[in-house]
């Protein structure tokens, strides 16, 4: 802290009015961009290698032992599996840039087309769940933080913590089964399978959102309680600002930085969680497709979807880091 503070007067002259374009931010962008490129490369290479790491001949195992050898050979030929590894790798990379991800072994459809068909359903599910989780967790966590600050209302704190721990420990697909039972079987209020009208979204979104919401609310409360004890909050009180403004403008952004760091992990887990939830609710997205494709040994499709999910995770991580840097400029500088 001190060292950055002392370092600034030297570079200070060029800083005025261009806070986003100067030193620390450029360094942040370069560092974070570099990270993204390397991670992306690792992801692409890993999914390329996946098909080659499988013991035995993937085409033979996909087509089954009864398939004629000529068909296997033809399919290997069309997949380019007989080329040298490096050539295949170059083709794979080239295909990525032109949107060519190969074709399905079973349906013969281009993988990019399969993904294009299925992606919107998964994206909707994940984004809605993310928004619902935030909308539930942040106000609840802030409220609980304010109510239980400085060791107040210990009973309420215990009830809240216990509920959120238990709720957060239930995996999304089990929550889904429970919700199906309650709202579908027991009360018959909501559809439990497929993607149709708005009501068909309720249960899948809830089963994805509730766990992360509980964990986030818990973190939010802890952070809020700790921020409410900070010296600068006493300063804010000494300024005699209205309480609501102190909580929302002084405490909340500071509590959010830690919440978002940990929340980023939960959100990537939420992206992956769609795989299971889609299978509970027969949701026609990428998640149900990847599960069935693994069982069918349709490797090109699996490869493509792994890439999409991986890229989604990297994107979430990037977003989290950028939001953090904007909320708390120190986080962008700290690591450089």
């Amino acid at each position: 802290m001190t060292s950055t503070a002392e370092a600034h007067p030297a570079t200070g002259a060029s800083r005025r009015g261009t806070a986003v374009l100067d030193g620390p931010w450029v360094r942040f962008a370069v560092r974070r961009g570099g990270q993204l490129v390397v991670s992306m490369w690792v992801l692409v290479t890993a999914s390329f290698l996946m098909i080659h790491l499988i013991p035995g001949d993937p085409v033979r195992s996909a087509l089954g032992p009864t398939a004629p050898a000529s068909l296997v050979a033809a399919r290997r030929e069309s997949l380019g599996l007989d080329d040298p590894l490096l050539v295949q790798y170059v083709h794979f990379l080239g295909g990525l840039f032109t949107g060519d991800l190969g074709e399905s072994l079973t349906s013969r459809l281009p993988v990019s087309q399969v993904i294009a068909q299925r992606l919107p359903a998964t994206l909707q599910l994940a984004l809605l769940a993310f928004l619902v989780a935030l909308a539930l967790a942040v106000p609840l966590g802030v409220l609980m933080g304010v109510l239980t600050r400085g060791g107040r209302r210990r009973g309420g704190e215990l009830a809240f913590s216990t509920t959120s721990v238990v709720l957060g420990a239930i995996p999304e697909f089990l929550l889904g089964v429970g919700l199906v039972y309650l709202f579908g079987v027991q009360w018959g209020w909501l559809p439990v399978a497929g993607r149709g009208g708005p009501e068909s979204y309720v249960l899948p979104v809830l089963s994805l959102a509730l766990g992360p919401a509980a964990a986030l609310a818990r973190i939010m409360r802890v952070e809020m309680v700790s921020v409410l004890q900070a010296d600068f909050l006493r300063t804010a009180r000494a300024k005699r600002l209205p309480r609501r403004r102190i909580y929302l403008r002084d405490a909340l952004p500071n509590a959010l930085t830690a919440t978002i760091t940990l929340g980023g992990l939960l959100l990537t887990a939420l992206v992956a969680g769609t795989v299971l939830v889609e299978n509970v609710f027969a949701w026609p997205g990428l998640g149900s497709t990847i599960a069935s494709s693994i069982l069918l040994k349709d490797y090109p499709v699996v490869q493509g979807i792994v890439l999409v999910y991986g890229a989604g995770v990297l994107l979430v991580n990037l977003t989290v880091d950028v939001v953090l840097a904007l909320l708390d400029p120190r986080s962008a500088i700290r690591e450089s």
Partner: protein
Amino acid sequence: MTTSTTFDAPAVAPRRSAARARWLAVLRTPVGAGAGLLLALVLVLALVAPLLWSGQADRIDTSAVLQGASAEHWVGTDALGRDVFARVLVATRLSIGLALAATSIAVVLGLLLGCAPLLLGRRGGRLVTAGVNIAVAFPGLLLALFFAVVFGVGMTGAVLAIGFAGAPAFARLSQTLAAGIAERDFVAAARIAGVGRFRVLLRHVLPNIGEPLVVNATIGAGGALLAFAGLSFLGLGVQAPSYDWGRLLQDGLSGIYIHPVAALAPGVAIVVAGLAFNLFGEAVAKGIGLTTALGGGFAPGRASRREATRRDARRGAATEDQGLPVTDPGPEPGRPVLEVQDLSVTFPGAHGPVRPVRGVSFRIGRGEAVGVVGESGSGKSLTALAIARLVEQPGEVTAGRLHFQGADLLTGPDRAHRRLLGTSFAMVFQDPMTSFNPTRRIGRQLAEVAQEHQGMSRGAALARAVDRLRSVRVPAAERRAHQYPHEFSGGMRQRAMIGMGLMGEPSLIVADEPTTALDVTVQRQVLDLLAAVRAEDDVALLLISHDVAVVGQVCERVLVMYAGRVVEDLPADQLRTGARHPYTRALVAAVPDMDVDLDQPLPVIPGRPVDPAHQPPGCAYAPRCPLASARCTDEDPALDDDGAGWRVACWHAGEVAADRDVPGAAPVALALGERA
């Protein structure tokens, strides 16, 4: 734990029994005991259930297909008429066993990857670390799916997949732990002694990271259990005719409309077992003071913990006063800016209420500078917070009278005094590094005062903030206003803090140790600034400090506090030589100066300050006082006025202990004024 018993490195031996004691202590807490019991139950079930109920679980009964719950079948039967409850119980072994197998793979692989940097040297280590960092960014389930493809669908494939997927997290953990140990002195000593890398790892690093690793593995086993259930549920894990909970869940879900319990029972089993591992791990982690992946969060610092209290002084406050109108009556000549009578602050303690401030009375005239000195814990800061009405619950403030500019701060809601206090009462806190909001620009933090209390627009308020920053001699104020606190040095921040107090038109600045956190040259500047501000606008100052010299320079009057009371109230120019209270004299004598004989030990005040929870009946200073007599230990002296405004609370005020070497009894040549 197992690692620490395999190697008898000397560094480990004392840790081992301590570790055992801590784990036992965890089992005595309610959560630890509950989770431990649950975990033991699950493990026992995993061992015995297949022996007891296998027959029942596998008995096909086509006459009792898909039945509901009955006395014979507690949770009914499945599509082949097999008892679902027995199947859930029997599945415990496979579910738990597979989860533990996967966790072991994850821990071993993680440990190998995590310790690789120690063994491989710089370049190879960095490569491994970078790889782990990338892998760790992906959620476990995604990694598990990837590896499930590579290792193939089925039980073995799933164990390997989940083990490999869990490895990066453990690698990261052991990396962090090992790096921490590797920097410790005894490891460095071993290295210098020529012990090889591998041996250092085995003898010193591994035994010391064993405990946190085991704790996290316990939590990890819960995660592996859930992940396995997930894979089996997707059909990628356990294959028929074998069955684990995930498999049973998948079977049950397809028939959930006909027979919901068959889906719910394995679900409940998964949750309960997962929670058992999770809660037990968390309880142990908490008990032995570890932070787990999600258990982070900051330990509140000393300063902030001290403030774990609340404002709201209304309840219990003595409100016999007639209660002037709560609006700002404005400064009036002759009337004191601040009038405090019999101010006390009470906190609930383990053994009844504790009163760190006990009946403090004083007044501050217009433009007057009053210092408050005393050791740490004498109640100085709390007094300041109490008069500023910033003491938070559970702290309670009571007073016979608490008037600021004629307004009675004890009556009426906080809201009524908000504007008066927000514009006329300035506070400067001790630590400028933590007293500004790190996420907001300095200018805005100042400006909001004017926006809130003076009804200024955003732009006008910011202009005022820049003007105020300029007035406290912040160079390039306009540019500085757009910067964040971390771009300010400590001294600059304290100036900005003073500037914040000047956003209104203060008649009183309460400065609580404003220079303690700053280095000496900056201290001087901040004190000069305070003096200049006072001189310009006739602002009164209450300066709290443990530094007698500073107070002597800046203030006109000094309040000496001990154990929550004012023990002497004297003119600042008398502080050095004329103090009447033995405590004041001892404080003054404890300040070294340029003439002090460095061969002699520096004078200190013998004994320790009084614990506010255990106030003696008589004078609180008596146990440390060279003048103490029987009366002192029985009766608490009142703070008596000598008629000229000099107040002392001492039965022996002004006396000198002739036959003993009392610090401060002989006039010590203190260079109070000349120090800077």
